[in-house]
C-alpha cells in the first residue's frame, strides 16, 4: 500500500536525522538535516515537525546520540540518553514527551547488561518502530475504514500524519466510496497544507472548508461521521488534540453524528483536565509568513490544543504501542 510522505516524516540514515519540514509542505518538500539532539529539539519547538513526527524524532534522536557518542561504558551511554530525555521532556508541554522518553529509557534498561548495549538498543528501537508502530498504525487505519460505510462523508480536523489517506486506501480495498471534508485548521493550516493535499495526492475526493463551516455542513446533512487524531490521551478516554477539536466534538454530539478518534491509550494521565495546554505566541495568529494580517494594536489569544471528554467520543480506535 502506498504511504504518504507524511506517514513516516522522519528518517534516520547513518548519523543524520532527516526531518520533513511540515511547515513548507506542499509548497516545498524539504528535509531538515539534524546531527544532534539540540537541533532535533529546535525542529520540535519551531513546529517543523509535529504529532507523529515528534514521536519519531524522539525515538530516532536516542539512536542518533548513541551513534554519535564515543563513550564506551554503558553507564556513560545511559547518561547521554537521560540527558536527551530531559531535554525533550522540557521542550513542549502538550505532547507526551515524557511517556516516549520513558519508553526509550525502559528499552535501554532492558539491554543495559548486554556487552553490545549500543547495538542491542538500536535494534530494539528499530524493531519497536517497525512492529510496534508502523504495523499497528496500519491496523488502526484498517479498523477505521471498517467502521465506514459505502457513501460516507468524513469530516476531519488538523492532520493525522498520513493515516487519513491510509484509511481512504483501505476503503478503496473494501470497495467503499468515501469522501472527505478537511477543515483548514488555523492558524497553521495543517488541514489545508497537509491533510487536503495528501488526500488529493492519493486520488481521494476531498473538499477543504474553513473551520467556521463545521456546523453548516452538519446541519445540512453533508457529513456522516468525524474522524480526528489525538496528540495525547488520558486513561479515562479523554484526549487532547489540535485546537478546534473540542467544538467539532460538541457539534457532532448536537447533530448526532458519530465521532471517532484515532488514539494511543495512555496510563500516565488520569483525565483530560490533567493534560497541560500549550499557549503559543500572538504572532502566529496575527502574521503569516512574516506578513502582518491584523491592524497594529490588536492582540491575539492562541491555545494550541483543546481537550475532548470521553463522553463526546463514539469510539476510540486505539493502537497500543506497548
Amino acid at each position, binding site marked *: 500500500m502506498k504511504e504518504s510522505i507524511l506517514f513516516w516524516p522522519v528518517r534516520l540514515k547513518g548519523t543524520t536525522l532527516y526531518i520533513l519540514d511540515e511547515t513548507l509542505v506542499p509548497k516545498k518538500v524539504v528535509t531538515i538535516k539534524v546531527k544532534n539532539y539540540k537541533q532535533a529539539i529546535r525542529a520540535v519547538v519551531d513546529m517543523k515537525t509535529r504529532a507523529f513526527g515528534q514521536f519519531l524524532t524522539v525515538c530516532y534522536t536516542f539512536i542518533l546520540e548513541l551513534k554519535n557518542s564515543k563513550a564506551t561504558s554503558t553507564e556513560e551511554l545511559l547518561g547521554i540518553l537521560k540527558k536527551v530525555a530531559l531535554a525533550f521532556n522540557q521542550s513542549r508541554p502538550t505532547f507526551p514527551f515524557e511517556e516516549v522518553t520513558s519508553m526509550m529509557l525502559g528499552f535501554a534498561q532492558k539491554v543495559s547488561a548486554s556487552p553490545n548495549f549500543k547495538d542491542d538498543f538500536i535494534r530494539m528501537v528499530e524493531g519497536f518502530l517497525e512492529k510496534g508502530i508502523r504495523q499497528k498504525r496500519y491496523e488502526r487505519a484498517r479498523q477505521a475504514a471498517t467502521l465506514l460505510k459505502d457513501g460516507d462523508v468524513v469530516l476531519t480536523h488538523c492532520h493525522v500524519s498520513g493515516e487519513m489517506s491510509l484509511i481512504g486506501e483501505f476503503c478503496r480495498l473494501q470497495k467503499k466510496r468515501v469522501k472527505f471534508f478537511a477543515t483548514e485548521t488555523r492558524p497553521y493550516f495543517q488541514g489545508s497544507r497537509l491533510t487536503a493535499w495528501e488526500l*488529493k495526492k492519493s486520488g481521494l475526493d476531498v473538499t*477543504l*472548508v474553513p473551520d467556521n463551516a463545521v456546523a453548516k455542513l452538519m446541519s445540512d446533512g453533508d457529513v456522516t461521521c468525524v474522524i480526528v487524531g489525538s496528540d495525547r490521551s488520558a486513561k479515562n478516554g479523554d484526549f487532547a488534540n489540535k485546537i478546534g477539536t473540542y467544538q467539532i466534538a460538541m*457539534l457532532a454530539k448536537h447533530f448526532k453524528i458519530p465521532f471517532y478518534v484515532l488514539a494511543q491509550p495512555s496510563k500516565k494521565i488520569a483525565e483530560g483536565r490533567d493534560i497541560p495546554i500549550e499557549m503559543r505566541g500572538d504572532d502566529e495568529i496575527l502574521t*503569516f509568513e512574516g506578513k502582518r494580517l491584523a*491592524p497594529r494594536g490588536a492582540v*491575539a489569544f492562541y491555545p494550541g490544543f*483543546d481537550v475532548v471528554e470521553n463522553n463526546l467520543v463514539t469510539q476510540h480506535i486505539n493502537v497500543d504501542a506497548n
Partner: protein
Amino acid sequence: MQINNKIPLIFGNPDVSFYETLEEKKVFVAELRPGLEGMNAVASVLLKKKITPVLICDNMLGFCMKQGLVSKVFIFTHAVSKDSILCRTGSLIAALLAREHKIPVYLFKAKTPSVSKQASLLKIGNKKVTASSLKTYVPLFEEVSKTLIEG
C-alpha cells in the same frame, strides 16, 4: 495574551450602530476566514474606539467558552425569517456552544456586505497557503434558530 476576566465574544461583522452599545474595553473577535473581516474590519473599528480586540481563530470559540473566558456572545443578522436568522457562517457554532456553556447570545444587525470578489480559502493576506488545485467549499451564511438567541 493572558485573559484574566470574562469578556464578550464578537462573531461576525457588525453594523456601525453595534459599537455604540459596547461597554467593555476588551473583547474576543473571531477572525472570520477566509476574508478575515473580524481580524481587519472589526478589529480596526474597535481600535479606533479604544477597545482592545483579542483575536482568535474561528476554531477557538469552544476552548474560550469552556475555560469560562466568555461573558456573552454577539452575532449579527443579515436577514430574518419566521423561525431563524441568516448570519455569517460560524454563528451557528458560536450560538450552539454558548447554549451548551450557558452563555447568553445577543443579536445585532450585521454590516451590509460589500459586493466584492469572495476571498479564497487557498490564500491568506494574498499569500498562497496550499495547492491551488484543491476543491473548496466556503458557505458565507447559515441559518441560526431564534431559540438560541437571548436578546
